[in-house]
Structures are given as C-alpha cells and as structure tokens.
C-alpha cells in the first residue's frame, strides 16, 4: 500500500469519526427531553431533526470535499518523492556526478534531496580515488616491468648462457610480457572509466574493417583447423575510431577461434538492421553456461578453469570490447546454447543516421 493510499484512508476515517462525534453531540444537545411539556417536546423534535438534516446535507459534502482536497494535497506533497525515487534508481558508477534537481524551498524533501546529492558526491569521490589508485598503480608497475624486460633480454643476448638457463629466462620473459599486457589493459579501462580516452570520430567503412578481420581470422584459425566464413558483408558506414573498431572485431574473432571446438566453424556477418549496422560472429565452441553469461564482460572473468590452462590472454578482452562498443554508442550482446553455438552481436549506429559517438 502506498503512503498516499494509507494517508487518505486515515484521513477518511478521521473525517468519519468527527462526523460521528458531531452527530453524538447534536443528539446530546437536541434530543427531546422526556420531562418537558409535550408542546415543547414537539418543537425540540423538530429542531433535532433539522440539526441532523443540516449535519447530513452539509457535513457529508464537506467531508467528501475534504477527502478530495486531502488526496490532492498528498499527491502534491509526494510527487517529488516519486521523482527522487526515479532519479535514484538511475544512479550508477558512471553518472555519480549528476546531481538531483532540488526544489529549494527548504522542506523535508528538499533536505532529503540535498543529503542524497551529498551522498552521491561522496561516492563519486570514492570511485575517483579507486580509479586514480588503479591508474597510479599501473604507471608504477610499468617501470619495474620495463627494467625486468630489458634485463632479461640483455641476459638472453649473451651467447654463453646455458640452454637450461636460457629456457628459464625465456619463460620469465613470457610472464613479464603477460603482466605488461594486463597492466596495459587495466590502464586503458581505468582511463576509459574516467573518460580520459579520446576516440577519433570519423566515417569508417565497417564492411572494410570486417573484410580485413575476416582475412586475419582465417589465418588465426588455420593452426586450429577452424573454418571461418563471411556470410554477409553489406556496405555500411559508421562514425568512430577505425583503430578501435579493428581492435574490437579482431578481439571478437580471436575469441571465437580460441574458444571453439577443433575443426569448428566461425561465421561472420555484417548486415543493415534498422538505423544500425549489425555485426554478428558465431562459433561452435563449448559455449557459455547461462548462469555465467551475464559475467562475460566482467574484468578478469575467465570462464571455467580449463580455459585458463589452454588459452592465454589477459582476461580483459571482452571488457575492452564492451567499452569500445559503448564509446561508439552501440550495444553488444552474447547468446549461447552450450555445445551448439555462441553468437556475439554488435550493433553500431550508422553514420547516415546523423548520430555521433
């Protein structure tokens, strides 16, 4: 039951009780008294009936009017609460800086809005500090990584290095490179969160990017015996950053190949869909269990443990893909029927639609 209904019911009950009290008091005042002369008693009775009629004919409409007025007043008083609820429901980590509009009249709700705004501002500050921390941490990690990389390489240049040691250094170098990739990905995403990555906004022929990705995907798929097909490639232009779009498609193609069954299929398609360009990439891999689907875009999400062992990567690829898509004003979805197929669908607004990323 909403506050409005509850208050209105209370209000109606109080009105009804007041009416009853008035009735009882009137009865006390005008009720015919048995010890008065008969003639007076008749007059009293007339007065009594008149008073009752007055109460009925004026009291009930007045009560109804009060009820309607009360309903209206409550509605007026509580509308800002509905607005506040809607606005609070939209708050997430990316729009914490947006403040809710205040009425400025200093009432309780205005106070509530003020407190609410102060709370989101504090939250924004906390998020900001976490982002700055991650950014600083990744910068600080780069110097030691550069040194380790350089020193290992210097050692490897020494031709007198024993084979066993060489193997060990190469393995260490691999790990340093993996760490570097993680740090790079983390830096990029943290900067993207803080809105510090500027993307180019120019017309990009998406079909060209798709064909290029198709060519690279065929090569990447060959060692695994995976077959890559381009089932549709319509001539479409979007507005955006060519390099980032290439990175996006290559990343999705790479995933479709890596997480595929041996001798599986990968199908790419680019089609016109309403006011958007729709790129789909389907593979025939083991798929993703439904309970894990909402998590695939999470940072460092790596699926089940068996994937970790056989497929290398930094666990940030799909998070980066999702960022690229949303930075272009598009959407990315993933659907999977385990052991049958997994389809990733990317929709990007068309250049002709006049939208800017």
């Amino acid at each position, binding site marked *: 039951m909403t506050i409005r209904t509850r208050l209105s019911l209370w209000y109606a009950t109080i009105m009804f009780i007041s009416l009853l009290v008035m009735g009882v008091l009137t009865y006390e005042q005008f009720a015919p008294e048995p010890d008065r002369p008969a003639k007076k008693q008749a007059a009293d009775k007339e007065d009594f009936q008149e008073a009752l009629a007055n109460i009925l004919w004026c009291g009930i409409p007045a009560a109804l009017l009060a009820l309607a007025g009360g309903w209206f007043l409550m509605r007026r008083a509580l509308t800002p609460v509905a607005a506040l609820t809607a606005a609070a429901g939209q708050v997430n980590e990316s729009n914490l800086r947006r403040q809710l509009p205040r009425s400025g009249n200093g009432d309780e709700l205005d106070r509530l809005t003020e407190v609410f705004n102060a709370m989101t501002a504090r939250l924004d500050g906390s998020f900001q500090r976490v982002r700055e921390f991650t950014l600083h941490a990744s*910068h600080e990690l780069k110097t030691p990584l550069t040194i380790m*990389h*350089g020193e290992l*390489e210097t050692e*490897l240049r020494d031709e007198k290095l024993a084979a066993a040691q060489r193997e060990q250094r190469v393995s260490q170098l691999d790990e*340093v490179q993996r760490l570097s990739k993680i740090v790079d990905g983390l830096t990029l995403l943290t900067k993207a969160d803080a809105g510090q990555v500027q993307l180019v906004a120019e017309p990009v022929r998406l079909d060209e990017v798709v064909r290029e990705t198709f*060519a690279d995907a065929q090569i990447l798929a060959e*060692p695994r015996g995976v077959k890559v097909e381009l089932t549709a490639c319509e001539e479409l232009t979007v507005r955006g950053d060519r390099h980032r779009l290439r990175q996006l498609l290559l990343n999705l193609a*790479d995933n479709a190949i890596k997480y595929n069954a041996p001798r599986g299929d990968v199908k790419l398609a680019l089609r016109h869909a309403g006011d958007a360009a729709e790129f789909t990439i389907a593979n025939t891999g083991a798929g993703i269990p439904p309970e894990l689907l909402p998590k695939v875009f999470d940072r460092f999400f790596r699926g089940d443990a068996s994937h970790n062992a056989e497929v290398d990567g930094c666990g940030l690829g799909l998070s980066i893909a999702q960022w690229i898509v949303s930075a272009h004003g598009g959407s990315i979805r993933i659907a999977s029927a385990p052991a049958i197929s997994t389809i990733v669908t990317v929709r990007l607004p068309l250049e002709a639609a006049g939208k800017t990323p």
Partner: protein
Amino acid sequence: MRVLVVEDEKKTASFIRKALQAENFAVDVTHNGDDALALASTTPFDGIVLDIMLPGRDGLGVLKQLRARKNTTPVLLLSARGEVNERVEGLNAGADDYLPKPFALAELVARVRALTRRSGESKSTVLRVADLTLDTISHRAQRGGKEIELTAREYRLLEFLMRSAGRLCGRMMILEKVWDYHFDPGTNLVDVYVRRLREKIDADFEPKLLHTVRGSGYVMKETP
C-alpha cells in the same frame, strides 16, 4: 653513430646503454631534461632517446625546446603513460617515433636504428636475401627460381622483414608497419603470420632465412 639517452630511471638507462653499445652506437646518458637540452645543443647527435616523464623539464618540454631551436636530431619518445593521445601529441611536437613502456629492448634498438639511418634506406625495387627475391613493383616473390604466392598482408610482412634484413624486428614494430596497429591488439597475429610465411619461403629451401629470437621478435638473415 652517436645517441643521447635521456632517462631518469638509472637501471633502465643502463640496459638501454648496454643494448645500444652492443650495436656499436656511441651512447651518452643524462638523467634530466635540462642537462639533455644543454648536451643536445653543444654535441651533434644522430638520435635522441627521450623519456617523457623526467624530473624538472619533462620530455615533451625538451622536445619542443629543441625543435624551437631548429635542432632536427631524430627523437624517439619513451613513455610509461602509453596513451594513444600522447603518441599523437608527441609526434605533433616533433618526435619521429614513440615507444610505450614496457617495451622489448629489441624494439627499442630497431627503432633507434631506423631513426638514425632514416635517409639511408634502400631505394632498390627488388629486395634480395640469399636466393629469395621480392619485386616491390609487381609484388612477386621468388625463391630458387620458384614463384611464391602471397596474400596482400603476407607481402607487406615479407617486404618489411626483407627491408630490415639482418636486423631484429620486434612484434610491436611489425604490428605497426604491417598492420598499422599502434597498440597491442592482444592476439598472436604476428606469430601466426610469420609461421605461415615461413612455410612458404623456408619450408622447401635451405638455408632457412626467417629466424625467431625468442622473447624479442624475428630476423631475416642468411646465417642463423
């Protein structure tokens, strides 16, 4: 060839110096921007390796000042920030190349070499390594008189490797020159392409020409 390395991190400066000296460069090292400016205006260098984050005057400041003084020494910027925008900013300020940290040493050496011999690059239209030839006009490749079929990408890769014959080519540099990627796309694209190319140009022939330097990159040369 004389190179100035401006890097405040002593260990990094030290292995950069060693690597460049191993390639027969004469190397001067300074750890701050003001010294770098003073040195660069009194000594003619063939190239400058310049870190962006320096105490006092930062790398971009040094670069702008150099260019304002009409000093055209080729500059390779190093940066731990690694932003796409920063690369563009650096090139606009007059840098000749940009390398984000952490980098492979091979990458740095290859870039410094490219920087210092920029003008001296081979202008020949037919590239040759042992009995492998590549015609850069007709895009035809032959080895031992046998025609080799190449896709457009394989051609660009082979052309780049042959133009840098005898020199180590890092993955980042290959990605940049052959794919036009200025950041790591996070796939093993280069390795897979090199493997394919090797099958075409090396599998049926001796000696092998395309060698892997583990952890660093690839090199095209006759002797291993």
